[in-house]
């Protein structure tokens, strides 16, 4: 049992390293905090120190794990212990969106946002029960490897590789945007520089050591991100409730939210809307309030036109329910029904299980047994963050209802003023327009001028809006109430919107604000905010790392080695992999520069697409022996077509919908189509070859035999009977 001893020793050593790392991180944070409070260290220095230390750490791990061995480069040598693979999977999975934006989404959506919390955790149950052990048993390098071997021929592999690249590239672009934003906000470098610095950090690590370096960096990144996520909200909980476990104490916040919403008359029946009629705020706990709207599509098209100089016609803005329409024209809005919520939860779960960068993590463990265990650990580590996110949202909601809404704009809490200056908190009271250049209206007011709801009369000709000391008056023209307030007039001008008091409906908070502002709300020193930034950076970089590996291996392994040149030498394959890594990173950076809203949208769509393409094909590949290549292709193509059709139609025109299900959950229609087509076409065509059927039998046996599987998956594909 010498081998076992060696493994034990290695695991102990790993635990020691990461234990030391954790302690070091805490000690450094404490020292920085002390330096800030006692010696008055400037904020920029603190930000830079955290940045340099964490990036330096990632580079160090990357250099230590540099490798030229193919197995290490693609699958970390297949010797990552379950618990560490769990942490790596957690960091791989939790992206900039999970870390920074999810709490803000929950803040805005209330119960409806829980679809993301349940969806992005429940998917791991599917992953554990249906995929992980078999993927490990299969024991190759990529997900297209599985599809290609199981379904035979080039086409299935090609379709799978192209899908993997498209999904991963949009996803990695979103991470790069996240990196740029965090860097620019906390270090004060321009966004573009933030992108470059961040990406070079990713590259140092993945270029030198491939999956091996990525894995060990991700473990460190998980530790940073979870500590950074838990600390601020723990202190906020202590401050607001006197109890330091936010996950249990935010019930009090929910209670206060309900009470304050009652006092402020915020309800789901009469939700607050922004200038375009889109619902922005409603009751927090009551469920299923979201209406349908194509506002994101209108924004996205406008952004593309202005950035690329194209002239796509944006769709006419539509919101359902639309209160400005006469009663007989009002379309059913499906609010109050659970269908969209259920469909979205389901798509997110199934999509999670079908994402290639998560699936490949299960190639890296030593055995089938460990692969099962590592999904358990992965979900546990993810759970720690997702279990906490609703607490962030509830505390922020409470704080805002209590201390911000209904207060005079001139005397809002300091943190609100700070984030308003950065443009992350918008106050839509017209009194805030005092002194603004008419040519430079804020984004919320400009469309109102275009639509005629707001008229600016520059009476004194100074090019600025003058409303100081003005009083509100109202007159009726053609049955419409027209308000006048200083140099402003129009239907948008009402008593409430000019009174200098911040109503709930006048307040818009960027989703990123909640997590980023919590240290400030809790009255913590800037060091904690810098730690949160480092955590957000870790979340974005770790996900980007994993995705870049998927893209480079899809090109170098699946396209080049498997399809174009099966005789390529090991060296060529590794070098091609490394250069593809850089190409993919550069493309992602270029895609990230315009900061298109469409990118975030595409990431959300990736789940529906993965659900309608990969999921059924991989599932049937393991659990239904009779499933064959033509069936799989028909299923993937059919499933994706239906999904994309529904997605595009509903995105542009929300009155196209079934049961009020939005484009985000369009996979719910493609998934059954995929299963059905796959079944019918498989039944109508010949059964898969004996070799493939044997392969499926092997997959179901948990005893590892990597050599046999490699032979089965290899281009030669001939196996002697009873090769065990």
């Amino acid at each position, binding site marked *: 049992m010498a081998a076992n001893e060696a493994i034990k020793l290695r695991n102990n050593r790993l635990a020691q390293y990461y234990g030391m790392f954790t302690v070091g991180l805490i000690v450094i944070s404490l020292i920085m905090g002390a330096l800030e409070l006692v010696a008055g260290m400037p904020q920029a220095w603190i930000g830079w120190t955290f940045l340099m230390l964490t990036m330096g750490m990632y580079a160090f791990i990357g250099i230590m794990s540099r490798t030229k061995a193919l197995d290490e480069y693609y699958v970390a040598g297949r010797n990552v212990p379950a618990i560490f693979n769990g942490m790596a999977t957690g960091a791989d999975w939790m992206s900039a969106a999970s870390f920074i934006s999810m709490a803000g989404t929950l803040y805005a959506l209330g*119960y409806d946002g*829980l679809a993301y*919390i*349940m969806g992005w*955790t*429940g998917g*791991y*149950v*599917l992953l*554990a*029960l*249906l995929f992980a*052990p078999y993927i490990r048993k299969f024991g190759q390098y990529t997900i297209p490897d599985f599809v290609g071997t199981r379904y035979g021929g080039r086409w299935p592999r090609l379709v799978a590789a192209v899908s993997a690249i498209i999904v991963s590239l949009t996803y990695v672009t979103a991470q790069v945007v996240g990196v740029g934003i965090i860097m620019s906000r906390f270090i004060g470098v321009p966004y573009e520089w933030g992108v470059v610095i961040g990406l070079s950090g990713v590259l140092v690590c993945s270029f030198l050591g491939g999956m091996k370096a990525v894995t060990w960096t991700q473990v460190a990144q998980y530790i940073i991100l979870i500590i950074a996520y838990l600390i601020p909200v723990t202190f906020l909980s202590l401050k607001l409730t006197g109890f330091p476990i936010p*996950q*249990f104490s*935010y*019930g*009090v*916040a*929910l*209670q206060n939210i*309900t009470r304050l919403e009652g006092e402020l008359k915020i309800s789901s029946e009469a939700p607050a809307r922004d200038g375009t009629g889109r619902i922005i705020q409603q009751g927090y*706990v*009551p*469920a*299923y309030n979201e209406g349908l709207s194509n506002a994101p599509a209108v924004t996205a098209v406008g952004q593309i036109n202005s950035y690329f100089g194209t002239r796509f016609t944006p769709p006419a803005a539509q919101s359902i329910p639309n209160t400005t329409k006469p009663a007989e024209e009002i379309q059913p809005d499906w609010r109050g029904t*659970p269908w969209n*919520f*259920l469909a979205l*939860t*389901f798509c997110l*779960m199934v999509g999670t299980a079908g994402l290639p960068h998560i699936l490949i993590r299960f190639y890296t463990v030593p*055995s*089938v*047994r460990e692969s*099962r*265990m590592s*999904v*358990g650990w992965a*979900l*546990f580590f993810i*759970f720690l963050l*997702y*279990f906490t996110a*609703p607490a962030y949202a509830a505390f922020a909601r409470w704080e805002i209802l209590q201390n911000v809404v209904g207060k005079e704009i001139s005397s809002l809490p300091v943190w609100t003023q700070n984030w308003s200056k950065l443009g992350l908190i918008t106050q839509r009271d017209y009194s805030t327009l005092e002194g603004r250049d008419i040519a430079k209206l804020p984004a919320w007011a400009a469309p109102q001028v275009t639509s005629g709801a707001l008229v600016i009369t520059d009476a004194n000709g100074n090019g600025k809006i003058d409303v100081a000391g003005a009083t509100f008056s109202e007159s009726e023209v053609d049955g419409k109430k027209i308000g006048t307030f200083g140099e402003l007039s129009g239907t948008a001008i009402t008593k409430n919107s000019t009174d200098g008091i911040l109503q709930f409906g006048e307040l818009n908070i960027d989703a990123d604000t909640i997590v980023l502002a919590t240290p400030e709300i809790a009255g913590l020193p800037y060091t904690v905010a810098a730690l949160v930034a480092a955590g957000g950076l870790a979340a974005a970089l770790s996900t980007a790392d994993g995705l870049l590996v998927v893209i480079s291996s899809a090109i170098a392994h699946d396209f080049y080695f498997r399809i174009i040149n099966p005789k390529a030498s090991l060296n060529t394959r590794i070098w091609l992999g490394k250069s593809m890594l850089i190409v993919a990173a550069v493309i992602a950076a270029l895609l990230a520069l315009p900061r298109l809203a469409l990118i975030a949208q595409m990431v959300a769509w990736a789940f529906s697409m993965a659900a309608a393409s990969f999921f059924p094909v991989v599932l049937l590949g393991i*659990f239904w022996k009779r499933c064959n290549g033509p069936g799989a292709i028909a299923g993937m193509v059919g499933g994706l077509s239906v999904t994309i059709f529904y997605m595009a139609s509903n995105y542009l025109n929300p009155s196209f919908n079934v049961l009020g299900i939005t484009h985000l959950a369009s996979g719910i229609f493609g998934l059954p189509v995929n299963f059905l087509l796959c079944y019918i076409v498989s039944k109508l065509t010949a059964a898969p070859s004996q070799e493939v059927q044997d392969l499926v*039998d092997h997959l*179901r*046996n*948990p*005893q*590892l035999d990597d050599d046999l599987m490699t032979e089965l998956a290899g281009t030669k594909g001939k196996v002697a009977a009873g090769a065990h």
Partner: protein
Amino acid sequence: MSDTKDMDRQQRINAYWNENNRLIISLLVIWFAVAYIPPLFINQLNQIRIVGFPLGYYFGSQFSLAVFVVLIFYYVYAMNKLDSKYHLKDK
């Protein structure tokens, strides 16, 4: 259950596979029930409050997540037992 030692290798794998599938299905039933049934009764559940948490909200934000974690660890435990029972344990 008869002693699995008497079965030949393929028989063992088949029996193992059937038990594996039964386990997966029963765990998926729990998974489905926990995730998709409470949202149907959300308004009724939210009438009940536990330490401030409306019950329906609590199911979505905490209870279901915890059940997911437990389900996977139970699956790990049950499968390890199954591996030994059919002598398919990895070396």
